[in-house]
């Protein structure tokens, strides 16, 4: 039984086959990266895994359970959290409020209790706050706790989004281009965060990434895609030197 497995994943948008027969397995505790030129279907795979799209074909299994038809909001409860390529934070809320929403999968209070704000709700809220504060400590976000997202720089927002995903307490973390829009230094620290998430929190990471320096720094295995089809799977070095991959990136 594997930790996370995609088998023959495919999706059609009208006549376009955005993802076509992609299969891969992610082992627990590894950092698995999907690379590929623009339009290769990397983000589409993420949207399939987080169930925003319904696959036309194929199966997704996570921790031995079939999640191919699970409702999108159930995914977080099963232990899969994600970030977005273009940052989907709640911009007019503070960092802390964003992180608390990340705790939604662990909600635990009922509507009527909340209506009267019973002591149990207060206790749960404080527990959520403590969990969020742990993540704030882990990712060094203390200076930004009460600032609004719109007042933060892009680099910090990327970290906040990762923090929100960590608040879900996931077993599998999906990072969609964690380094896009970041400076070289910020990309380096992102690599350290990802290593820490894997090594200290024991969370398996599945990511989409373009920056090969980041990929080679953190990732064990890489899957290369082109036009929705897998072209190479292996270590960073193997994939980078694969003739199909070179052809996909450079043409010819």
């Amino acid at each position: 039984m594997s930790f996370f497995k995609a088998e023959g994943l495919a999706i059609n948008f009208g006549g376009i086959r955005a993802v076509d027969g992609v299969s891969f397995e992610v082992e627990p505790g590894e950092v698995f990266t999907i690379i590929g030129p623009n339009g290769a279907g990397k983000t589409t795979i993420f949207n399939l895994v987080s169930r925003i799209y319904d696959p036309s074909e194929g199966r997704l299994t996570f921790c031995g359970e079939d999640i191919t038809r699970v409702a999108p909001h159930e995914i977080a409860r099963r232990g899969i959290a994600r970030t977005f390529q273009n940052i989907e934070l709640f911009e007019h809320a503070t960092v802390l409020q964003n992180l608390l929403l990340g705790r939604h999968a662990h909600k635990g209070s009922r509507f009527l209790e909340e209506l009267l704000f019973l002591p149990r709700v207060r206790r749960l809220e404080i527990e959520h706050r403590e969990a969020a504060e742990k993540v704030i400590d882990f990712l060094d976000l203390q200076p930004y706790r009460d600032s609004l997202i719109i007042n933060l720089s892009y680099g910090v927002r990327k970290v906040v989004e990762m923090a929100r995903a960590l608040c879900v307490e996931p077993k599998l973390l999906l990072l969609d281009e964690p380094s896009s829009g970041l400076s070289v230094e910020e990309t380096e620290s992102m690599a350290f965060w990802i290593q820490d998430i894997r090594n200290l929190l024991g969370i398996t990471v599945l990511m989409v990434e373009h920056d090969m320096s980041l990929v080679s720094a953190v990732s064990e295995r890489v899957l290369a895609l082109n036009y929705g089809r897998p072209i190479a799977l292996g270590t960073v070095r193997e994939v980078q030197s694969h003739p199909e991959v070179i052809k996909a990136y450079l043409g010819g």
Partner: protein
Amino acid sequence: MRFLLKTSYGQDLALFRDGVQRNCYIALFVALLVLPRLVPEYVGDLSLVFIYGLCGLSLMVLTGYTGLVSLGHAAFLGIGAYAHVYLSQDLGMPWIVSVALAVTVTAAAGVLVGLPALRMTGVYLAIATLAFALIIQEVFTRWERVTHGLKGKPVQKVVLFGLPLGSDLSFYFLCLALLIGSLWLTANLLRSATGRAWVAIRDSEVAAQSMGVNLAAYKTMAFAYSAAVMGLAGALFAHKIAFLAPDIFSVLLSIQFLLMVVVGGLGSLHGAVFGAIFVAMLPVAISQARDAVPGWVSQPFAVFGKDAGSAVFSAVDRFVKQPGLEPGIFGLILVLFILFEPLGIYGRWMKIKIFLSTFPLYKHATFRRQKSYMRSERLR
């Protein structure tokens, strides 16, 4: 400027930021208790403000917090009003039971509207709710056994636990108590997980969903809660106007509710109350302006001779006495607020407070980025 030292997580869950704020609200409460003694002639108008406050609160939850625009909330008000009057007068239920049932019925109607509305956003949802309101208004007209149709239905005074609360003064306190109660319940929801999920849906549905928010369930819940508060407002409104007729619950009333939340300030409970005060005062202001404006406008023209002055006076007078002018004025105010003060009266209030508290150091750029308030609405 006051700085707050936070020493516990519980502090962030408190209803009031600090002692000063709490004392301000207590002072306001005391002022509202003695207000009827100071201005006894306005007690009736003030209870209407409280009822409008409930209406604003209802739409604030749906539009201001969950980001779902409704142009049909007058229908919920009507359902609450007719249900309450039918249950208490025709079926003879005690007041409190009939209000509770009216609230339940309205919440159920909210769920019924909410379910198909799940697939719609922005303008499409507004149109769908508008259609719903028109249908309900037609139902009020046709279902004569319950509503007495166009003949209208007189409403008796409130009798609570055998206690007649018919006087304007006791009705004032009843409305005040129910408004404060509803504000408290809503504030409770907003500081717990449900409120956060609503705001998350407003700001980014896709992010909310991947954090585990069940979009369908929370949107339906927002509709149901909003309708329930509207149902309560409807029951009080029925007593306030003392005579129910279908044409009261028109689209114009729904637009007034929308005006309330936009002018008051989307996404704040203060905004709902500010908006209610504004909308309740607006008709008074308009009717006074109707008398005054022709005089103002024609005065400068009087220098061209008496005839010119009186000609302008009668032309302007004829224009402002047009019966259909109010919807236009409502619409104009709505547009002006969206353009120039998207955070509404509450936003302006915040700016004045910050200006005063930081006085010589106020930065003009503090609110520079406010215009992108409802990001999700902008993208659609």
